[in-house]
């Protein structure tokens, strides 16, 4: 029964797995670039969820075609929303990468733990 539900809703299931994978990467990896990749994976999980929500089995792309009326169109709205989401994620990645570069130049490492250590050495303890 449960398996059946999973099989029918496999895109959502995949989204959950992707989300978990991304979260684990962000939370457990010290490398800043890997953290960014994890964030991108989480975002793709959410995009997948949206895109799956817009899909209708047997639907066609929602382009108005007067020669064959009465067809089932998939919902274009979630995909359009996700295009916006992708734009946002591209800009976040770009900004994050440039910041990573600045951090790398300043500290000479991409390891978040080492950076935290160096920071606490620099700052006086109070």
């Amino acid at each position, binding site marked *: 029964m449960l398996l059946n539900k999973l099989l029918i809703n496999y895109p959502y299931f995949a989204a959950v797995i992707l*989300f978990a994978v991304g979260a684990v990467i*962000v939370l457990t990896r010290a490398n800043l670039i890997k953290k960014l990749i994890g*964030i991108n994976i989480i975002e793709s999980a959410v995009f997948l969820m*949206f895109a799956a*929500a817009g899909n209708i089995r047997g639907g066609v792309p929602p382009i108005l075609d007067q020669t064959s009326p009465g067809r089932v169109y998939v919902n274009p709205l979630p995909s359009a929303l996700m295009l916006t989401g992708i734009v*946002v994620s591209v800009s976040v990645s770009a900004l994050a990468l440039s910041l990573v570069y600045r*951090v790398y130049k*300043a500290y000479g490492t991409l390891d978040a733990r080492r950076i935290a250590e160096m920071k606490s050495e620099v700052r006086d303890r109070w």
Partner: protein
Amino acid sequence: MVTAIRDHLPVLVVVAPLCVSFVLPTLVRRLRLAEGLTTLIAVIGLSGAGYLASLVLSGGGTSTVYSMGGWPAPWGVELVVGSAAALMLLTAAMVSLPAVLFSVNHLSQEVGSSNRAVWFYTLFLLLYGALAGMAVTNDIFNVYVLVEVAMLSCCGMVAARTDSRAAESALTYLILVSLGSALLLGGIGLIYIITGHLNMGYASQELSRIWQDYPRVVRLAASFFLVGLGVKSALFPLHVWLPDALSCAPSPASAVLSGLAVKGYLICLMKVLYNVFGGSLIQQLALDKIITVLGMAGIIAASLFALAQDELKRRLAFSTVAQLGYALLGMGLVNASALTGALFYMAAHAASTAVLFLAAGAIVTATGKKRVSELAGIGRKMPVTMAAFTVGSLSLAGVPLFAGFVGKWNLLLGSLEAGNWLGAAAVIVGSVLCGAYLFPVIRAAYLEPAPSDDKRQDPGWLQKLSMILLGAAVIILGVMPGPFLKLARRAAVDFIAVR
């Protein structure tokens, strides 16, 4: 022409700052012009917000609905200027104008070059436009987009200084907050999947009809919204990025970030929780208890953290977290007085914290001293700055006749009304703690002798003017809170009225 502008004001308050921010990057060599344009937009924003607020007040609290592109509600994006939106627009404009005035003639030395200063103004206007958008929008996907715009511009503003700590704290901020955005987007997706609407009103109607069919999805969506927007607005256990970010940012940026940006996200959270889920659903999902507990924990814990900080800006940053706890507490109590208190306190705290951060920034620029223990006798060397600082501190500590008191008083009434004695105790203890970490600064500044070798003085007249304006706003809000309180009360009643 005038009527056209008046009719379209809800969208113009959002578009005007964005338009100017698009043009600013082409003016990198003309700092004066960029400063002038930014100030102009801040003034226009203030008058526009004032006009919209007066419309809402005179209209008896009715909201103006504006359909983008002429597409009506379930299809198109709707902008709604109600009491809450007017209050937030007014707050945003009230804090932005002094922050811009403070930056003029001053910012280049804080961020390193005039090029970077122009970029800073670009980001500032983007943030301002996004905040105005968050205030007026009635569409949850729009909320997401505007939240992202605000987050990116905040991140840029935190990284505006050239030192390595600024880049590092901006990166931490960006990583944590983009996790929050993913959660927020997930929450929006779940709401869209089960209701089929992105418009808050329609989604709310649909949700109240069908939520019992999908109790787990609704719960998940609510927690996604709470955590997603909670990370962004630095609610207590999720605040770890805020102290670093605020202490590294240039002072106008810290003022705006602590005063407005986090409030914008909080208003979004409030809109989503009350306008989409609705008060009764919040109570049925027991979200109100979680929010109240988080709020109380935030007030007490962050105040205790603040006591332990010696760096002035970090102390103020923890104070911000603590004060956000008040807003959260008011949100969780689900009654009109508490919500009134929360909304008014957000406005009051915006002005008070902005003046504190600007004063702290002025002190750092003039003397290079960042620590509380180094500030002995500064009150006599920088009278205007410290006077403004004192006004802000008194307001945050909840002294009567200052803005913070009115908000805290309403919150106290609200907690008693809800029968939540712990909440009332937290409000009072928080105020005492707030006095405990802010008053030593004032005592050191005025009562301790200054080291004689220092030559300190107040900053330029624009910086003084901006601090005086904000201080005056804090006092006016405290002495005659009338219009603001009325807006807050109506907004609270509207929020509660959505089932």
